[in-house]
């Protein structure tokens, strides 16, 4: 099932609704990369609250998406990793590298704002 993407001001919010197949992940990547340009978005939130498994493939896809978004000039924050999922990721030795994470949508938006402000100050 495709992931719906909401536009809110300068941000895009992609809320995962169910388990993602590989092609859902690819589509999410393409949709986000395209919409960041179309809406001139500054930031992207990916909400994975409903995911009950984040395996090595899913982590790799998230890292790739965040990298693509960064190359398009926007920031990505991942929110909603569940406790059981976090525990399994640590045991498995998975890392999200430089993809910032936040507890939920609210914290994610705050973090995104902070990072975008930081980016602009840095460029000045």
């Amino acid at each position, binding site marked *: 099932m495709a992931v719906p993407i909401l536009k809110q001001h300068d941000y895009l919010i992609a809320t995962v609704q169910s388990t993602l197949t590989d092609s859902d992940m690819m589509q999410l990547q393409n949709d986000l990369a395209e919409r960041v340009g179309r809406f001139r978005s500054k930031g992207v939130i990916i909400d994975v609250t409903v995911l009950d498994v984040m*395996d*090595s*493939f899913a982590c790799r896809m998230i890292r790739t998406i965040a990298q693509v978004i960064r190359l398009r000039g926007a920031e990505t924050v991942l929110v909603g990793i569940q406790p059981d999922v976090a525990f399994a990721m640590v*045991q498995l*030795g998975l890392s999200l590298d430089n993809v910032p994470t936040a507890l939920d949508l609210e914290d994610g938006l705050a973090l995104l704002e902070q990072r975008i402000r930081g980016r602009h100050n840095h460029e000045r």
Partner: protein
Amino acid sequence: MNDESIVIVAIRSDADIIAARQQGRQIAASLGFTSTEQALIATAISEVARNIVEYAQKGEITIQAFSERGKHGILVQARDQGPGIADLDLAMQDGYSTSNSLGLGLPGTKRLMDEFDITSEIGKGTTVTMKKWRY
């Protein structure tokens, strides 16, 4: 669920990976594993199923309840007739498959379960057998 029931999931595509881990979670739940343990088991199944699709294209995963000397648990076996793994010791080394490569992810998968055994023969295929006990 009694100890005789076995679920076999044919693995040919990414959709089958999802089916296998959902079956695994369901069986783990019915056996009384905690939700954290269910997540570990489902993730382990996802990893070995991914390896089948990635390296052997097709294979199967069997999931069953089992008992041994009064202890109960879940037994997961992933079988394929793929190319096999040339150097098992190397494949089981942490860091052999870096997080950036497709990777076999076998050392990590081993950490998710209580027992982990792998046999592989070049040109014949690979079998991974994993157990998790219910404490």
